[in-house]
């Protein structure tokens, strides 16, 4: 299902006219019909696509300077860190650096019990400091309290095709990459994937 999903957005369809125009541009007599060319192209394209989707691994595209949040961090510090770096979520680690969850805007919103839409981390931090708004029930709690756990993580050698599929399937925006010991090695976000696909042309 995953690769089907991705293939749908690939611009594979050549018309006979495209092929004819290309053949004309090549001047010499090309000993193949436009129909046969398209057949060869489609099969070859699918193979190249598959190869490219598996050629790049998470470790090639992930961000390694990850802003991890300690499970004990209070929510003010958490929200301020997210706001400061302009990110909407981050992995949560325990004392040994192992990934135990992910905290994101969604978790804050859930913790506030309100159906806030498009609220910014800065606003949340402000609310938390000023005990009186909807964020009030969250004061005194830690990142570990509100995070989504267990974290969905993957190994560094997962292909970017599989990462895309996982993000879609779990409706998440970032995938922490864990090394063999379960420690945080990096993170692949949707924008890392956009970059990766851009690199692949």
């Amino acid at each position: 299902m995953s690769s089907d999903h991705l293939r749908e957005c690939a611009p594979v369809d050549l018309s006979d006219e495209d092929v004819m125009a290309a053949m004309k541009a090549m001047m010499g007599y090309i000993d193949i019909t436009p129909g046969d060319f398209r057949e060869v192209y489609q099969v070859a394209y699918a193979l190249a696509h598959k190869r490219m989707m598996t050629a790049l691994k998470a470790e090639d595209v992930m961000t390694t300077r990850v802003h991890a949040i300690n499970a004990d961090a209070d929510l003010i510090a958490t929200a301020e860190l997210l706001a400061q770096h302009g990110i909407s979520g981050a992995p949560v680690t325990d004392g040994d650096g192992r990934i135990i969850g992910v905290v994101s805007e969604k978790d804050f919103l859930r913790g506030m019990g309100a159906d806030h839409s498009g609220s910014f981390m800065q606003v949340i931090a402000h609310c938390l400091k000023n005990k009186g708004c909807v964020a009030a029930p969250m004061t005194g709690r830690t990142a570990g309290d509100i995070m989504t756990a267990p974290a969905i993580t993957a190994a560094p050698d997962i292909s970017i095709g599989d990462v895309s599929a996982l993000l879609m399937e779990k409706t998440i925006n970032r995938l922490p990459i864990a090394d063999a010991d379960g420690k945080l090695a990096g993170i692949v976000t949707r924008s890392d994937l956009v970059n990766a696909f851009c690199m692949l042309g």
Partner: protein
Amino acid sequence: MSYFQKMKGRTQSPPRVGAVEIAWSWIGSFLGIAAVGLIHFNLLDSTALVMIIGSFGASAVLIYGAVRSPLAQPRNLIGGHVFSAVIGVTAFQLVGGQMWLASALAVSTAIAFMHLTKTLHPPGGATALIAVIGGDAVHQLGYLYVLVPAGLGAVVMLIIALLVNNIPQNRRYPEFW
């Protein structure tokens, strides 16, 4: 796709080539056949040897008119003529009493063998057939037919193809050896 649907075809003919391409096809084939013809009519005339056979006309279409075609590449040109000549002569010598059978065996076996050796060259089918139906002049050559005209003629045409097809900027030959 149903059996009769297939007969309607599904795509279109490749585009017509430009005037320059046509001109170079004419020049190449003129020179190629001229070379083989000169040897045949001016050098070998007094001998029993033949140099020019009908299948070279077909080879000219490919190696001067469709130079990029896999069928027109040197291994196909040389291999196709030489292997088919051997098979044609053998077919005549084995079952020449039944000309229809020798003809059919020569051509079909030549095609299969060219496929097998990745030397498919359509004129090779004619070379195999001519070995059977070419009359006394050809029959008397025996296996010499493989070298002259088949092998030597193909080599002469190949040399002309290498010389002529690489003159124009947008032509090159061969694609592979």
